[in-house]
């Protein structure tokens, strides 16, 4: 008995020592840009909870195993635009042309924090396989500091990617086990730097616009109990890089994590309502509470509404379809706490347009 206790104590102490070291790891900002880029507004709103909410027929599943629940083949194209996308488009051109001085002038005129996402995607899906192509996704984050010694904290990502999902279902007694695998190939240009105006004026070449290509394999599994409420549990490993070439990706984009989710569908007379919760086990997210997110989706005919909430963040959006056209709008709010404990709120709006066949 005492041998078991001693080994149990060793294991507990090992876990405690490791977790307390991870707790000092650098924390990323609230705008996590790791993992797959969102292909549509619904995925942006729901974040990790998208994997356990099945309320969108036209959308592409976030979890590859959920593909096995599809009933028909679909082709779709989407564009989503955050506010100030025209400015971000200017930055994208400077980055692609490596015009450092042009970029500097624009960046240091941006004295308010800015977070914008712009992207487009095309996909085709069936109950067994889906293929998605993202010709462009731009994620721009900047935070300007110190007017007496101007500095900008930048995280600019320009990405093109191809994503293939495959799924297979296994019927069990009164339940279903869905297995899925997602393969993602990305080509990225990144500018992740804290840049001071005078350092860049001294030598514009310090702006390090880097390029890399990566291939990720992301397996996942969903277990669903076949009852009226359809309770389910999902698990998916993400950002598992199996190949990489070019420059080393920035730390904010590197490192794998897994999502563990649980959800259910509420039996309703009209429409479909799903509720779910997701836990993201990512060592870069220091606070335990920031790893948890709650989400809900409601689908009624042509209308699809989504809402999700986490610590210091929430998002809500609605999209509608008419014939083949689809449009949507979403509102995002982040709360940031300063050194003196005061809280500041950042709000953004994003629009979506698409075609579904």
């Amino acid at each position, binding site marked *: 008995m005492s041998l078991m206790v001693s080994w149990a104590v060793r294991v507990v102490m090992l876990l405690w020592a490791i977790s307390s070291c991870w707790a000092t790891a650098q924390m990323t900002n609230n705008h996590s840009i790791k993992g797959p880029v969102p292909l549509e507004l619904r995925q942006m709103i729901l974040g990790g909870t998208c994997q356990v909410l099945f309320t969108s027929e036209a959308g592409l599943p976030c979890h590859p195993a959920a593909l096995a629940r599809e009933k028909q083949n679909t082709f779709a194209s989407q564009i989503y635009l955050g506010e100030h996308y025209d400015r971000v488009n200017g930055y994208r051109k400077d980055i692609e042309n490596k015009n450092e001085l042009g970029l500097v002038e624009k960046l240091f005129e941006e004295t308010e924090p800015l977070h914008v996402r712009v992207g487009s995607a095309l996909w085709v899906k069936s109950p067994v396989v889906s293929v998605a192509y993202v010709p462009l996704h731009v994620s721009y984050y900047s935070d300007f500091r*110190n007017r007496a010694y101007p500095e900008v904290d930048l995280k600019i990502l320009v990405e093109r990617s191809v994503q293939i999902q495959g799924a297979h279902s296994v019927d069990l007694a009164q339940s279903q086990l869905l297995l899925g695998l997602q393969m993602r190939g990305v080509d990225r240009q990144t500018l992740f730097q804290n840049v001071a105006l005078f350092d860049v004026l001294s030598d514009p070449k310090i702006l390090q616009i880097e390029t890399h290509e990566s291939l990720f394999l992301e397996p996942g599994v969903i277990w669903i109990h076949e009852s009226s409420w359809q309770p389910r549990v999902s698990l998916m490993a993400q950002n598992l890089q199996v190949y990489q070439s070019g420059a080393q990706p920035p730390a904010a984009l590197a490192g794998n994590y897994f999502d563990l989710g649980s959800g259910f569908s509420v039996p309703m007379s009209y429409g479909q309502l799903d509720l779910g919760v997701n836990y993201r086990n990512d060592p870069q997210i220091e606070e335990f509470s920031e790893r948890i997110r709650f989400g809900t989706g409601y689908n009624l005919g042509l209308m699809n509404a989504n809402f999700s909430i986490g610590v210091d963040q929430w998002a809500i959006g609605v999209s509608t379809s008419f014939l083949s056209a689809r449009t949507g709008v979403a509102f995002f709010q982040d709360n940031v706490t300063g050194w003196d404990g005061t809280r500041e709120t950042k709000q953004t709006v994003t629009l979506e347009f698409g075609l579904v066949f």
Partner: protein
Amino acid sequence: MGRQGFSTLVMVFFVWNSMLSISCANKSDPQTSDHSLAVEEAQYWIDQNQPDRAIEILSPLLSTPDSDAAERIRLTLASAYVSRSGVDLVQLIAVIKKSREFSSEIGTNISDVESKVLQYIGANPDLADSREVFLVLIQVYRTIFTIIETVELLEQFPTANPGQQPDLQQAIRILRESPTPLSNGSVLYRGMLRFIDFQMNLKSQKYFSSIQICKITRDSFFSELKRVENDFVGILEDLEQGLTKPKDQSRIRNFKTQVQEELNKIYSQSFHEQELYEIQLSLNRWLSPDGEGLCP
């Protein structure tokens, strides 16, 4: 507690120590982390328009021996004083943009006019004698517009609030007293702050004070001129080091040489009393607010 229990405790103690040393082997130096946090907090207070709090946090760390953090602490502390002086360096971005747009616009306009007139002269042989006159006029035109452009740009340079220039000078002092060489970007920053200080001294007539009290002598005039030269050449040296492109460095170096040569010519002059009096009158009129002069 029996023998088995005691040996279990000993094993736990040794395992715990070895786990801590292995799993936490990559922890960063605590002092560097503290200094980085202090700099971040100071920057936060500067952004909240409370530079006094930033100065309070960073002043005790100014003599830190850690070379990685030392420059960062020195720069952020200097920027806290700059913030307190009221200088807003974001305005510099508009000045840089305007200088690039204006120079290319004037250059293009003059070249267009020049080529059209030269074409016209070429097509009319009886105007051939006017060609040289015309080229001189174009050169004068360029010079006048360069002066106007420079004056307009200088007007847009950021300045400190009235009465807050000592804070700007304290920032410059902090950057000059660095025990280790600063990076090129930091030297460029210091040069820019020195230029703003120099411009403010010119506007507030801090140079040539002997002229203002009407007591000019050859020695006092040369000593004031030397003071202006030292300040201005110091700025040029910082700009030369801070701008790392060889073309920019060569341009500044040539300008510095030109200024020093012109001043050396003045120093080698032996001025008579009447000539000094004329110089005093001219400078006095230029420096006095109503242009009338303070001296009889």
